[in-house]
């Protein structure tokens, strides 16, 4: 036995690769797979594909990260049965037989000496003709070499442990499938003999390397696991600290696995099976891959992700590998997305305390980690993100400012770029009316920022600066997300024209749709960069994991085409999409750019384009999207349905969405539900319900000033509209005024166009048309300079209505206005807007003295009929009644009494419905 002298201490490079019974099993199977044999296929296999499949299976076993612990023998045997069909029994007999023969330390020695035989020489490029030899540099060869090396380094104690573990590994499998295994035991004694017979069989050669190369070519296995691809997007959160909570069980947080065992009632026999003996962690690489997947999953599903199940797994890892600190990070993410502030805070701090921020951030290949100072700046960024997530703008800014200072101190440029992006995020997310105090002083070294700048201007300067830095550092994802942020900024912020200076320059604010478009395009360039470059990420493990997970399916639809003609296309498709080289985070970013497009079109007033972009998102990015993004797209589509097809369809869609996404507080789906309920209640005249829903909406917003400002705007806008519908004009006007002030304070000019229009409406309805006119005109000019075309059309409509209410001599003017806006309204407006336009147009005709009903009655009647149809879909009783009223009038003049009565009856019906809104038997409300 020529084993090297045993070092007293294992070298540090062992990298947590421990020999376990499972690995011995894999070695055994490898031996079967790569046994020197002379036939094609080699002996036990009946076809080449069977042989290949075992090879693939073994590869998957060594690479997949679908679980943290190694499979038990029983699971392995089941999989083997599935994988190799007719050969399964032979393999199982062989494996269990060999395993149970390893009962003394010396058996292991001879076993591993044997294993060396199947490894080719390192430099033997030319293979001997009749030998299947494992290439030492292939994945499987490397695995085998590591096993042999680890075995050689094993101390005697380790050897003893291995022997004991193999014993219990076999015993457990046998006790669980007794009848089958007893048969095996009887046969096991023969196995060694048969095996040696097989070895001597004269079989044709099979070039093993082929399969291996094929697989490897597909996935450049770089062993680096880029853990942190979740750059600073708006994530954050905390996890409860199980150790700190004054819970009786908490002191033994690490033992929670054990305490769980106690959930069984005493005396339960299950508990008496020693639960610890047989759990072995997979290789470090696999566990980290698993953790990465989990991190993705948590971010993707956010709160719908089960907190407890992942927490359990994490605790188990923590127990098995207490020095694997990444677990704390996962716990942080987990509690963050479950809105547990204290736990998230504690775990975040714990993670950075232990790892100094250096573990798991290999996506930033920087030398600063090696100088012993750690990377605490990353911790600061995450802390900032966390405060952002929980809606603490002040703390977030403070932490991020500290991050800026610290990364400058450490000259960690990329971190600085990320920090700047994070600050931009905070500034755009929260309305900080006075950030100057925080930002002004400490930022002068990065940007020569004038402290007198407004928040919006500061944000713009910072965004530019951040983009510039990201570009110079070639942080592609950051560049893309900066472009996205700029697009958002351009969309929402009106700016003074940059080209005009001097006293004569127009001081008018405007928005620049071209810029939005440009930024969005630049953002989308990201995909081409990732499409061309062969990804640095390893898809190896992901591939193996899916392969193993779909084991039964992949057996039906073999990967290698030579097997048999029919295969399941759907599966194969799924299979290869998983191999896409574009990383998920990139896809996510691209997806967000489509959402942004959709939002932009919504604002600029093109409903079809908004809808198309939403649909593009749902079809192309649904797989990679996070659940919050997907939910917001669904919300957009539902809104679209409600506006264009009425509430019935929208509520059906909402029902579907609610099942798909968890409705927790503040989720987009909940928001859209409240919005729809409010709209509908307003239309049906159920003001009580409207007010109630409106209050519910308001409660969702955080009470901190500047946080959730969109939600607050929305809530008070709706509040004002409810008051308006209740004819409480002065209150409505007061709410609208205070809303205007808030929007002005937080620099939300774009929203102000809507508020102004609302004020015009209020004055119109209160009969004060003269007062309404300036508001409508102001709104119109806002819309014009901010390119809000649809809103402009509806402002024009309001203006026309105002003119019309000033007397019939203005009817001509009103009509011209309406005709000007009609293309926009009919092309992009929703049902309500169209109906309003039609009714107003009809009214214009009717009040125009030059118009005669008898001559051209169809013009008016047609308009009114269309309007009433649309309004009935919306259940907008008030306007529908008006339409029918006008219709009845016209019929009366024409002398068509029957039709007049018909219209009058409909009018009455709507008026009745308006006066006593009943919702007990409302089918739509009862859906929820």
């Amino acid at each position, binding site marked *: 036995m020529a084993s090297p002298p045993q070092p007293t201490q294992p070298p540090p490079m062992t990298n947590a690769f421990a020999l376990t019974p499972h690995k011995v099993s894999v070695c055994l199977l490898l031996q079967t797979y790569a046994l020197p044999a002379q036939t094609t296929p080699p002996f036990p296999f009946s076809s080449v594909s069977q042989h290949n499949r075992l090879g693939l299976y073994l590869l998957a076993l060594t690479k997949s990260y679908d679980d943290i612990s190694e499979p038990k023998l029983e699971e392995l045997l089941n999989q083997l049965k599935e994988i190799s069909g007719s050969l399964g029994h032979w393999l199982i007999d062989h494996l269990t037989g060999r395993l149970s023969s390893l009962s003394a330390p010396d058996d292991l020695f001879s076993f591993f000496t044997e294993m060396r035989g199947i490894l080719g020489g390192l430099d033997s490029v030319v293979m001997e003709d009749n030998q299947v030899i494992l290439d030492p540099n292939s994945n499987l060869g490397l695995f085998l070499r590591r096993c042999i090396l680890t075995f050689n380094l094993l101390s005697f104690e380790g050897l003893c442990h291995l022997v004991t573990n193999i014993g219990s590994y076999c015993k457990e499998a046998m006790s669980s499938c007794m009848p089958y295994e007893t048969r095996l035991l009887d046969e096991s004694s023969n196995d060694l003999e048969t095996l040696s017979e097989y070895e001597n069989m004269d079989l044709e050669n099979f070039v093993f390397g082929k399969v291996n190369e094929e697989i490897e070519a597909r996935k450049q296995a770089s062993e680096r696991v880029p853990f942190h691809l979740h750059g600073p997007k708006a994530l954050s959160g905390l996890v409860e600290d199980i150790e700190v909570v004054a819970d009786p069980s908490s002191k033994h947080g690490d033992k929670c696995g054990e305490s769980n065992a*106690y959930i069984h009632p005493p005396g339960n026999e299950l508990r008496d099976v020693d639960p610890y003996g047989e759990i072995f962690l997979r290789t470090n690489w696999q566990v980290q891959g698993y953790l990465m997947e989990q991190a993705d999953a948590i971010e993707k599903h956010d709160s719908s992700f089960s907190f407890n199940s992942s927490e359990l797994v994490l605790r188990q890892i923590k127990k098995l590998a207490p020095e694997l600190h990444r677990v704390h990070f996962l716990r942080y993410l987990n509690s963050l997305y479950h809105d547990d502030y204290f736990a998230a805070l504690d775990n975040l701090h714990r993670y950075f305390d232990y790892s100094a921020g250096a573990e798991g951030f290999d996506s930033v290949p920087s030398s600063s980690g090696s100088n012993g100072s750690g990377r605490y700046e990353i911790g600061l960024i995450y*802390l900032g993100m966390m405060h952002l997530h929980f809606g603490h703008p002040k703390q977030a800014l403070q932490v991020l400012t500290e991050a800026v200072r610290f990364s400058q101190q450490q000259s960690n440029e990329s971190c600085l770029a990320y920090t700047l992006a994070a600050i931009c995020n905070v500034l755009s997310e929260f309305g900080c009316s006075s950030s100057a105090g925080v930002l002004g002083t400490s930022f002068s070294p990065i940007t020569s920022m004038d402290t007198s700048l407004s928040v919006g201007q500061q944000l713009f300067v910072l965004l530019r600066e951040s983009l510039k830095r990201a570009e110079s550092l070639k942080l592609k994802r950051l560049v893309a997300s900066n472009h996205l942020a700029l697009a958002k900024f351009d969309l929402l912020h009106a700016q003074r024209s940059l080209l005009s200076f001097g006293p004569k320059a127009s001081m008018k604010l405007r928005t620049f749709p071209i810029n939005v478009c440009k930024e969005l395009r630049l953002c989308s360039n990201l995909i081409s960069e990732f499409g061309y470059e062969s990804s640095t990420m390893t898809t190896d493990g992901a591939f193996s994991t899916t392969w193993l997970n779909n084991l039964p399916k992949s057996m039906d639809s073999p990967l290698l085409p030579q097997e048999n003609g029919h295969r399941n296309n759907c599966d194969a498709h799924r299979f290869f999409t998983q191999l896409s080289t574009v990383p998920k985070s990139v896809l996510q970013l691209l997806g967000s750019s489509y959402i942004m497009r959709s939002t932009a079109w919504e604002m600029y007033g093109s409903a079809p384009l908004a809808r198309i972009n939403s649909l593009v998102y749902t079809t192309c990015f649904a797989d990679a999207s996070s659940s919050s993004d997907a939910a917001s797209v669904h919300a957009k589509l539902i809104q679209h349905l409600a506006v264009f097809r009425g509430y019935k369809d929208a509520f059906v869609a909402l029902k579907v969405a609610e099942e798909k996404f968890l409705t927790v507080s503040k989720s987009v789906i909940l928001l859209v539900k409240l919005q729809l309920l409010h709209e509908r209640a307003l239309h049906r005249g159920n003001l009580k319900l409207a007010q109630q829903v409106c209050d519910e909406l308001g409660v969702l917003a955080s009470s901190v000033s500047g946080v959730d400002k969109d939600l607050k705007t929305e809530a008070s806008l709706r509040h004002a509209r409810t008051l308006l519908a209740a004819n409480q004009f002065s209150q409505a006007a007061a709410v609208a005024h205070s809303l205007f002030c808030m929007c002005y304070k937080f620099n939300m000019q774009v929203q102000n166009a809507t508020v102004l229009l609302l004020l015009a409406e209020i004055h119109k309805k209160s009969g004060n048309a003269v007062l309404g006119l300036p508001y409508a005109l102001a709104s119109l000019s806002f819309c014009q300079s901010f390119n809000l075309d649809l809103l402009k059309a509806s402002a024009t409509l309001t203006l026309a209505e105002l003119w019309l209410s000033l007397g019939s001599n203005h009817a001509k003017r009103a009509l011209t206005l309406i005709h000007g806006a009609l293309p926009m309204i009919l092309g992009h407006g929703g049902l309500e807007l169209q109906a309003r336009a039609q009714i107003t147009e009809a009214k214009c005709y009717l009040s125009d003295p030059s118009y005669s009903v008898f001559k051209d009655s169809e013009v008016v009647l047609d308009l009114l009929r269309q309007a009433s149809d649309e309004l009935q879909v919306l259940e907008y009783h008030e306007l529908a009644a008006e339409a029918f009223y006008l219709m009845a009038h016209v019929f009366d003049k024409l002398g068509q009494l029957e039709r007049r009565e018909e219209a009058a009856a409909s009018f009455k019906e709507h008026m009745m419905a308006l006066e006593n809104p009943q919702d007990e038997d409302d089918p739509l409300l009862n859906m929820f």
Partner: protein
Amino acid sequence: MNSKETCRSELRIALRQLSDRCLYSASKWAGEQLVGIEQDPAKFTPTNTRFQRGSSSIRRRFRTNDITSSPATGMSYVSTPVLEEDEVIDGDFYLLAKSYFDCREYKRAAHVLRDQNAKKSVFLRCYALYLAGEKRKEEEMIELEGPLGKSDAVNRELVSLERELSTLRKNGTIDPFGLYLYGVVLKNRGNQNLARTVLVESVNSYPWNWTAWSELQSICTTIEMLSSLNLSNHWMKDFFLASAYQELRMHNESLAKYEYLQGTFSFSNYIQAQIAKAQYCLREFDQVEVIFEELLRNDPYRVEDMDMYSNVLYAKECFSALSYLAHRVFMTDKYRPESCCIIGNYYSLKGQHEKSVMYFRRALKLDKKYLSAWTLMGHEYVEMKNTPAAVDAYRRAVDINPCDYRAWYGLGQAYEMMGMPFYALHYFKKSVFLQPSDSRLWIAMAQCYETDQLHLLEDAIKCYRRAANCNDKEAIALHQLAKLHCELGRPEEAAFYYKKDLERMENEEREGPNMVEALLFLAQHCRTHKRLEEAEVYCTRLLDYTGPEKEMAKNMLRGMRSESSFPSMDAEHFPP
């Protein structure tokens, strides 16, 4: 009413029973208390007094009044009937098993007793199995150690022991010792609630097993838990409560209990050490030193608790005493975590931080959960400017015991040193939460708020105010409060705090730049508020100091005189 005599006789029997069952540390504890009971002078026998030599005469001189006062609390104790032995004569197998046990051949001992059904034999067999499992666990922990840390080794006997003991308990054929073992097993299995119940049963039926009490104490982590225990009154309960209070950081309550117990056990080293511990937590270092000196005189080979003594010596910078202590424990038993820790402390005091870290590491090798070694190592790393290592060490301490406010404080300091004051605040908040009466923690937090980066002066003021309220020995808080108020343009508050600070300095007879600053401010303040006489007093006091302030005071005096001369002339012209 417990008289010394009943205690003594109970302990004597218990000592025998405990050591008969190989519960050695419990019997050691019982023995210590037994000789700790003061002899009635009438019954002096030479053998008994031998243990109470040395300082006993001094002690008695100090203690006379205490003894008379302490039993006055008049608590009635239940008298637990002393356990009747079920086998008067141990079986042969038992004797053999006990010898094996004494030779630490646990598995062998258990094997000998495999068919014995007497309660005592069953207990010894289970206990031997438990210890065998523990021993194997320790070995495995080292064998299985990997780069990602130990793979969690467990005592493999626990499952079968738990099954057996729970059956015994159900059948009612379990004795208090078996219950104790059952409690320990349950605790290790993570079932704390049942463990508490079982341990309470055990100590209620046999109160003299101190290890059972300490196990119970280790799983009573909150005061609610402690008060919910249904314990019968026995003098052992006082020991338990005292130690539990100490663990729950109720130091004064604990101290009171110990002082009461000292009435009976006036020579107990154990109680003395515990009192020292409580005093240490109350930062009464001088008293702690006195107690330890005496303790060492009585029990020169003691290693337990000596790490605390070394901390005191470290804090008082007693180089030679610390070196003497280190030498002594080193000669007694160098492979005790406490010994290594003491040596580490010594090197730290000498400024040789690398060596110090080495010894702390050794201590941790001997006991991974040795809390203070982690914290002290953190301090060393801070000294060596290796902040990440320091952070790591502190964090480990905190994860072992989340109530260790020193480690939280250390973490905060480390981050503050790195220039991350906001990040550090999290840790300071944790530490003040755990120890709200420590002014140093409040001051550290205040300084954090005060840094240029954060500049949250209002919050700093709040912290300083808390610090000033908790007996701030270094007198930083008052001065800072005055300065901050001055900076924020609130002269009235500033004057108030300067005055308070001045009074304090006068009381403690301290001088220094702070004094000058306070005097100068007060003088100016009084002058602007036209309280000239007061201002004059302050100025005159300033004249005693050298430096620019002296000149300023002179000028001010001159100015005031000229100012006041006019109004005084007026006063002459128009007498009231």
